[in-house]
């Protein structure tokens, strides 16, 4: 097996991974960075983010406002020290991206423009039309090409974190082009692999969002934190799940039911007027909007469509000029994939799985509790998003904490940490290789990757969707456990070494199954309703018992084992989340 040495290994080359790599290169140019990704960097799912990135920009805004919006938006499950740091760093990181060439949309005076977003009191969402993630990702990727110390390993699928004496000392990864397992020895590893939306059947997430990094860390002994909190975005296209950005509501779009009635006024988000105003109606937070859809559906007030029930997102009153200038992608997507031109007709939409608030437990420096292991971006849970992320906080998060991970990794790698010995590394590598050999040799028993994936998708949607109960979650836990057992008998049809996607999909499914088990166990144990985690049998938030983070550890038998940790409260005591009303 080839052994490649690099001071810092970064797994994942989306927004967070690229930002971390650049931070290492800028902090300490002599450190060698190996940047691994299972896809080319431009394919990473950061590319699909649309609406924008939050950071205080206006004179009438303040860090305190951004802090308050984020903490109440997260239903007080955010760690407030992390949020404080986040809101202060946010404008700096967004400015840095401007200096690197990001084509932010502008005001007539040449300054960067900001737009309103759900749950945000004042306009503070920086945007590049409605392709913000695309532009951020390409800006980061192109900027990363400046630094000779960053060596990319594109289309390498990381199978294992190499652990010696409780310390993370590198990774094993399959070079997809050759099928060979390569060992990477490093002083520090940063995991930045993004979310896990593909665990669910109906998601905005691309095919690659399979929770690989979460599973890597989980198996290596890290905790997955707050995994029960899964965000449904209120406006996805039926059938495909393609995201229609919240920016379309930021620009003034409205949601109506089958009676052409703006139903959000019935769910503590009204009254209607004056309109538009922030933190009200369509500019409420995502959890509340998706939950309102569920209630409308129960009342029979949604609209029947070929791919299930929908409501209508109406942009017609914005006019063609504004739609083309601010929301060109939305128009193109709606025409192409829903056959609807939003200039002339409302877009059919329904809630769709979008984001994992939970992830690998890290501190505010992006460090996990495993020595030598950092994590940042959606795969991590530094706890700025709490029980419900506000739209446009995640693009900023991957910059702020991607940079911190990179800086921390650079300091650790430069500060006298040494490489683990080759013998120990090869021993770990052999174990990883033997696992793959067994998979290649396994004889089929009838279980298929696609069959298991469908069963997992169905169990998660019916058991751990927008509303949950003891019964639905017990069923989901039991099914997911069985799926974990069944997975052990999946065999490969494709035994080739070259670009074997049967193999990669099988490994991705294994990652999703581990992560899904952590999700269902955490959700079952949280007997309260908070943010995106809504229990029909425990309708109230319970701060006495659950103002705590869930920590899921993978026990020796593969089952999740739960622990809890208090939320960090510094200056905002848990209160009532107020939206609507007549505040402006």
């Amino acid at each position, binding site marked *: 097996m080839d052994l490649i040495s690099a001071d810092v290994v970064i797994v994942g080359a989306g927004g967070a991974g690229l930002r971390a790599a650049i931070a290492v290169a800028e902090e300490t140019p002599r450190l060698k960075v190996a940047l691994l990704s299972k896809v080319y960097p431009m394919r990473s799912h950061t590319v699909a983010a649309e609406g924008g990135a939050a950071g205080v920009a206006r004179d009438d805004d303040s860090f305190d406002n951004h802090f308050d919006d984020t903490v109440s938006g997260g239903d007080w499950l955010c760690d407030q020290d992390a949020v404080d740091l986040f809101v202060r760093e946010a404008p700096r990181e967004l400015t840095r991206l401007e200096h690197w*060439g990001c084509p932010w949309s502008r005001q007539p005076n040449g300054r960067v423009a900001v737009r309103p977003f759900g749950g945000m009191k004042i306009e503070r969402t920086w945007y590049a039309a409605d392709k913000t993630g695309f532009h951020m990702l390409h800006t980061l990727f192109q900027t990363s090409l400046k630094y000779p110390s960053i060596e990319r390993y594109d289309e390498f699928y990381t199978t294992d974190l190499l652990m010696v004496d409780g310390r993370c000392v590198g990774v094993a990864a399959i070079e997809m082009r050759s099928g060979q397992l390569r060992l990477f020895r490093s002083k520090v590893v940063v995991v930045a692999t993004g979310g896990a939306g593909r665990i669910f059947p109906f998601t905005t997430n691309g095919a690659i969002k399979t929770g690989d990094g979460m599973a890597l860390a989980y198996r290596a002994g890290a905790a997955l934190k707050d995994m029960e909190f899964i965000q449904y975005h209120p406006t996805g296209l039926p059938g495909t799940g393609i995201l229609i950005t919240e920016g379309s509501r930021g620009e003034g779009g409205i949601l109506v039911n089958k009676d052409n009635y703006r139903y959000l006024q019935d769910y503590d988000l009204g009254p209607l007027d004056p309109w538009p105003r922030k933190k009200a109606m369509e500019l409420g937070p995502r959890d509340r909007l998706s939950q309102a859809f569920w209630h409308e559906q129960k009342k029979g007030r949604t609209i029947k469509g070929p791919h299930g029930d929908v409501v209508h997102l109406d942009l017609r009153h914005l006019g063609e000029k504004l739609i083309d200038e601010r929301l060109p992608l939305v128009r193109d997507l709606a025409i192409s994939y829903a056959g609807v031109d939003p200039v002339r007709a409302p877009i059919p939409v329904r809630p769709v799985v979008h984001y994992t608030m939970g992830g690998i437990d890290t501190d505010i420096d992006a460090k996990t509790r495993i020595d030598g292991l950092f994590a940042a971006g959606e795969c991590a849970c530094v706890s700025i998003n709490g029980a419900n992320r506000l739209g446009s906080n995640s693009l900023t998060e991957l910059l702020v904490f991607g940079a911190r991970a990179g800086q921390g990794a650079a300091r650790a790698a430069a500060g006298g940490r040494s490489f683990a010995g080759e013998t120990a590394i090869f021993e770990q590598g052999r174990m990883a290789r033997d696992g793959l050999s067994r998979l290649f040799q396994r004889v089929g028993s009838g279980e298929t990757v696609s069959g298991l994936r469908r069963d997992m998708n169905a169990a998660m949607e019916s058991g751990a969707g927008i509303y949950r109960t003891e019964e639905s979650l017990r069923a989901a836990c039991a099914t997911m456990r069985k799926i974990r057992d069944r997975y052990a008998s999946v065999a490969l049809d494709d035994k080739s070494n070259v670009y074997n996607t049967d193999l990669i999909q099988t490994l991705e499914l294994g990652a999703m199954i581990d992560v899904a088990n952590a999700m269902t166990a955490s959700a079952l144990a949280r007997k309260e309703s908070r943010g995106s985690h809504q229990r029909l049998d425990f309708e109230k938030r319970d701060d006495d018992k659950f103002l705590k983070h869930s920590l899921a550890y993978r026990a020796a038998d593969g089952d999740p084992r739960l622990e809890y940790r208090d939320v960090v409260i510094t200056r905002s005591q848990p209160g009532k989340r107020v939206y609507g009303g007549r505040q402006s």
Partner: protein
Amino acid sequence: MSERQVELEILRYDPDKDREPRFQAYRVPCPEDWVVLDAINYVKDRLDRTLSYRWSCHMAVCGSCGMMINGEPKLSCKTFLRDQPDRIRIEPLASFPIERDLVVVMGDFMNKLGRVKPYLVPAEKKAVEDGSYLQSPGQLKKFKQYTLCINCALCYAACPQYALNPGFIGPAALALAHRYNSDSRDVGRTARADVVASNEGIWECSFVGACSEVCPEHVDPAAAIQQTKIASTIDYFKDLLLPGRKG
């Protein structure tokens, strides 16, 4: 669900096993709203686990799923079955070496993106504390179109010049150079000229315009190349008339 079925003839090639590429046919259903990628996913999930191809976003922004569909370079996630005949031939992108099935070798394309120095070279470095550069909407508009490239490489598969000379820097990379050259915040044009204005750069383009025709994002690389040619010619005459002006 519609009754219609289509036949996909997919190029198969596994260098571990096959001496040369071959075609394999699959019958798939054809719902009204399916794209070619949905049909290929159907094959992968239900008929043949050994088929390899790239895809992710299914919304024409990640740039992974470019392939030849009935001889034309297209994104399979944005090509609807309803617009295609009953028999659809699917091959990997033309002019690229085949890695496996519909997966092509992207290394050359990736290197070329890097060679044009696709990053902002500011006149003076600004500290973050000093805030953003000013850029008017008009200045943004001058290069915005060229920022929209998703690196899908369809333009390389369409380009007759790239087919003849794989050394050609090619449409996407030249458009990317033009994107930075046209950015009011950038002064890196001279640094990029070594590659952009070389024999393998803009002058290799014979202005057929196939790149712009197939571009799914309407980037218009052909226009970028023409504009670069003009700017580069002006540079040449300025150098002739004012020797040493670059100082």
